[in-house]
């Protein structure tokens, strides 16, 4: 399962706050895809995964060209 999180137009830390709030709503093993236009999200999503012991799956691209940062819930 994958939850899409639309954070287009939001500036950091807002996308990371949205990610943290969304985490408990998905099951362990499921993914969250954060669509973010703020360039800081590229670094900050990965740093969040490291600090919160979650898995950073990788970067994809949405149909409109916005980067998608994909995270898997580990705990």
């Amino acid at each position, binding site marked *: 399962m994958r939850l899409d999180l639309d954070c287009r137009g939001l*500036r950091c830390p807002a996308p*990371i706050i949205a990610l943290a709030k969304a985490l408990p709503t998905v099951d362990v093993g499921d993914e969250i895809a954060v669509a973010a236009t703020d360039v800081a999200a590229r*670094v900050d999503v990965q740093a969040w995964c490291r600090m919160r012991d979650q898995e950073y799956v990788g970067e994809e691209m949405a149909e409109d060209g916005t980067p998608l940062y994909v995270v898997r819930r580990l705990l």
Partner: protein
Amino acid sequence: MRLPSDPHAGYLDAASSEPLHPAAREALLAALDRGWADPRRLHTEARNARLILDNAREATAAALGVRRDEVTFTSSGTDAVHRGVLGLLGGRRRGSTLLHSAVEHSSVLHAAAWAGTMLDTTARVLPVDREGRLSPATVRESLAALDGTAMLAVQSANHEVGTVQPLAEIAARAAERGTPLFVDACASMGRLPLPGGWSVASGSAHKWGGPAGVGVLLVRKGSAWRNPYPVDDRSDERGSGFENVPATLAAAAALQAVVAEREAVNARQHALIARIRDVVATIPDVEVVGPAETRLPHLVTFSCLYVDGEALVTRLAEKGYGVASGSACTASTLTPSHVLEAMGVLTHGNVRLSLPRTATSAEVDAFLALLPDVVRDLRAEVGL
């Protein structure tokens, strides 16, 4: 709140600008009355100015352990960096590639970009590790992979996270390939001994307690450096414009004093920063960035998850503390710090704290006592 008796209490942003050292103030006031004339002329007033300028150059050279004729005073640290980088590129004997670390000061990056347009050179960025350190092995591999590198630019220490670069080994790798090395020493000059192995180096007086508007350009005797700008008919052909003679003497006096005091000051500051690192690391979801030991003595950077950097800096200012931030929202460009990005560490909720010479243990304790609540309150405001 700040007491009138202690105007700098709570100021924890020495890496942006160190308050004027008392030795600088004294020298500046004395030189203002005697050093205003044109040092190139031959009358009494001019000779006084020339004497002060020569003394400033001599004292700066002695404090840094370089030759007197290797010292040029510039109008700022940025000006010294630009002259240094562009002058080495202008004097290059081969190659068109400028190699630099990913965590150089923006003045190096801007000089590299300018050279790309004006001198047809290409910049190649060398990655750093999670602590902001450039590995000598990376330098060796990059130099070997490129046929004729024009120059290498590596800072002595990082201005945002404090990482001291392994410059002895990096300089050795550059020397093996005959590649000229530019060392931006603005963040460490005076505080730490100047590393060796450079062809050109730079410093900035207001970062060691001298006045603003004085930079130091060091050009090693015999290195292939060529003035990249229109020349001027001053006493020093590497600079341009009428010298701010009193300010150079003040800068030199502060540098001498800082070098003389650094053993004691560095030990005290290193211990205070170690305490800050320990306490900050106990705040939930806060990451202390940069190395614990191989660092500038007076500086620490940390990032707080879910916290807006601008809000954090503003809240701390309201409580009487002046700190800097590398977060995007605090930058005029609205892009996060390229240093934090290159290290792969959290860029939001970032605070850089750097102790001035006069910072006390009591000040640090008071800051540490309120920081956890400030972070908690800001998180509560966004529902976390």
